[in-house]
């Protein structure tokens, strides 16, 4: 599903990571500064590796030796950022439809209804992002990423900006997503509890290196 073998120098920090995952949810675990965000940004194509390859769903999206670098907008990925990044000039419904419009996909009302119900955002459709709570924003961001029909969903600490109560509110949605949405995910977090609930495979990062890889057991 996802194969990563990359090197990247970022100032003093050097990242060199290699792993292959078939899991439904690959958890990238590590302390802040371990290189999790750089790694996920390379998978997204927002950051270009100095050396190495990235293969998503059988398609090589990065291969420095062959000079391949598929730009982000052609990777067919979804990305949920820590800070939601909803478009402030569009309402929730327009935010949700943005990916479909950009990818010129036909309207799929059934999927849209399913995602809206899965995330409980039906009541928010007419609102502007400025009028939403942090938890609501993150749910809309999840829906927006899903509705662009990605083949891989990247989540960079999607609960990181929320307080405990909000985390508990969102976590069940993520579990439902994993079990029902049928999109493989890469989930970045430094929270062991979160990953225990969600991840099926763990990539543990420390100072830019993969220190262990395997089932959720490696978190102990």
């Amino acid at each position: 599903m996802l194969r990563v073998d990359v090197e990247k120098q970022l100032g003093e920090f050097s990242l060199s990571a290699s792993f292959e995952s078939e899991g439904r949810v690959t958890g990238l675990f590590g302390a802040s500064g371990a290189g999790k965000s750089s790694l996920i940004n390379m998978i997204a194509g927002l950051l270009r590796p100095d050396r190495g390859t990235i293969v998503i769903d059988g398609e090589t999206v990065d291969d420095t030796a062959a000079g391949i670098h598929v730009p982000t907008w052609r990777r067919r990925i979804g990305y949920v950022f820590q800070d939601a990044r909803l478009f402030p000039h569009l309402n929730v419904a327009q935010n949700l439809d943005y990916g479909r419009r950009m990818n010129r996909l036909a309207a799929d009302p059934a999927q849209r209804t399913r995602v809206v119900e899965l995330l409980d955002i039906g009541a928010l459709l007419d609102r502007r992002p400025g009028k939403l709570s942090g938890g609501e924003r993150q749910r809309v961001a999840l829906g927006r990423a899903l509705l662009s029909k990605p083949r891989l969903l990247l989540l960079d600490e999607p609960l990181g900006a929320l307080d405990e109560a909000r985390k508990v509110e969102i976590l069940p949605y993520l579990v439902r997503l994993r079990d029902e949405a049928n999109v493989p995910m890469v989930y970045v977090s430094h929270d062991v509890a979160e990953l225990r609930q969600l991840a099926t495979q763990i990539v543990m990062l420390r100072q830019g290196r993969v220190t262990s890889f395997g089932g959720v057991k490696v978190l102990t």
Partner: protein
Amino acid sequence: MLDISPAEWTAILLSLRVAVIATLVATPFGIALAWLLARKDFWGKSFLDAVVHLPLVLPPVVTGYLLLLTFGRRGLVGAFLADHLGIVFAFRWTGAALACGVMSFPLLVRPMRLSIEAIDRRLEQAAETLGAAPLKVFFTVTLPLALPGVLAGMVLGFAKAIGEFGATITFVSNIPGETQTISSAIYSLIQTPDGDAAAGRLVIVSVILALGALIAAEWFARRATQRLHGN
């Protein structure tokens, strides 16, 4: 209330036409340049920035004279345009529009540039992850978010264009019905005996137009802030 004569109307309408055309033609160039200055680093950037601002600090008569040398019938560009495309600027209202466009350009670009600089670029990244190609990102995210600044720049540019005098009169002279704008009409009137009343009326018209434009620019600037905060 204001008893405006047909000759004065001619000058007012000409001013409006000149300023509207100048603003509309300058706007796409202004947006492109604002984007370039806000987003790109390239060799000669500060020089380009200085050149854009030059009409703001040069004596308008110098700008007008340079336009005459360049776009006049014997000018390098002017001769080419006249011979090959049939476009003539010298002593035509189109020349007045060109002069106004050049003179108002720095004012038009500035708010556009500021509003593009104020955009959170992470939103553009988000658009990219949703499958938007760079040009689509520009038209669906960057431009809508910068729109209040773009409109503010257009209003300011328009206000400057409608009041332009020095470069216009140097470049295209002061021909009633062709190149005589409000400003040059006032200039002629105050040199004529008994011209005071007519000049006074045109002065009032220009004050109203300028004030209206400034109020509109202010309103757009406020909208810009609200928009960026997502309300």
